[in-house]
């Protein structure tokens, strides 16, 4: 199986994730876009680990997963806190710093 296919799939998924972050308004869906981008990079890591015959790529993908889990915990806690004070999960409603 060619490496190129996996790498193209990873870049397409990454681009879709980035577009989700740019376009969606619901903070939770924006967060899912970030997760999709992280997963796409993981796919690239695993693919290139196999290309080079070196497990270090998989170790890095593992670290990405752990950091992503920590990030999700804190990010969702922030969303819940914002929802409690503002009654909304839309990224447009968080404009407290606006003059």
């Amino acid at each position: 199986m060619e490496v190129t296919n996996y790498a193209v799939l990873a870049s397409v998924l990454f681009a879709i994730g980035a577009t989700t972050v740019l376009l969606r308004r619901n903070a939770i869906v924006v967060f899912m876009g970030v997760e999709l981008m992280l997963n796409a990079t993981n796919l690239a890591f695993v693919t290139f680990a196999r290309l080079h015959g070196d497990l270090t790529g998989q170790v890095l993908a593992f670290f990405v997963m752990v950091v992503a889990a920590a990030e999700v915990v804190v990010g969702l806690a922030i969303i819940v806190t914002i929802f409690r004070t503002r009654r909304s999960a839309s990224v447009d409603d968080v404009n407290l710093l606006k003059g």
Partner: protein
Amino acid sequence: MTATGGEAALFWVLAPLMVLAALGLLFVRRAVHAAMCLVFVMVSLAIMYIAQEAAFLGVVQVVVYTGAVMMLFLFVLMLVGVDASDSLTETIKGQRGIGLLLGLGLGIVLAGVVAQAAFPPAAGLGLANEVTNPVGLARILFGDYVLAMEAVGVLLVTAAMGALVLTHRRRLEPRRTQRTMAESRVRALPRGVSLTPQPTPGVYALNNAMDTPALDPAGEPVEASVPRVLRIRGQQRSVGALLESERATVEGE
């Protein structure tokens, strides 16, 4: 290397479905459906990892991502309200067009660069996975990256603490116990509040619905026995009409 034909078939079955599901993240209106799309993408990725000789990562992907992270997402969605759908008004003019253009451009640039590059044939992980994949990973993880591993442990603990602190709510008023509620009810007695529960609706020979008032010992209807909401809506039935219809039914037989 694994059997190339089987892997190619797996890839060409999974990849289009994954891209479709990922696009669902972009176009689906409800956040829950977006979460389900993402779950599909993640499970497919796990299958791809296993096909790419990364068995450990495949299992971790299922357990951590679909098992923990996405469930956390769904919990928060339930907390925030499932039908909190997106607003479609643009706060920044032309944002959707620009965002779509940027995303498309990023995708084309990335895919173009990757497709242009000439990769050597994959070396394969046969040698590295000789002691099985998890053991090989563990040797690198606890050999070269032991410091990073410990830093990640600290990060996880800090994140858990952060989530606890962020979602903690301080109690602003004293706790309402059964005793305080009973005392407040007794204190409200002079204002005409009843100490006991309201009387139940009336039960008749052919009728025991919520909208029929009960009769007191003197035979008068008890107003309070019909739920307040029904009384406000004017949906309660009068006792006279009720008894009349019951008698008509009995005499008709």
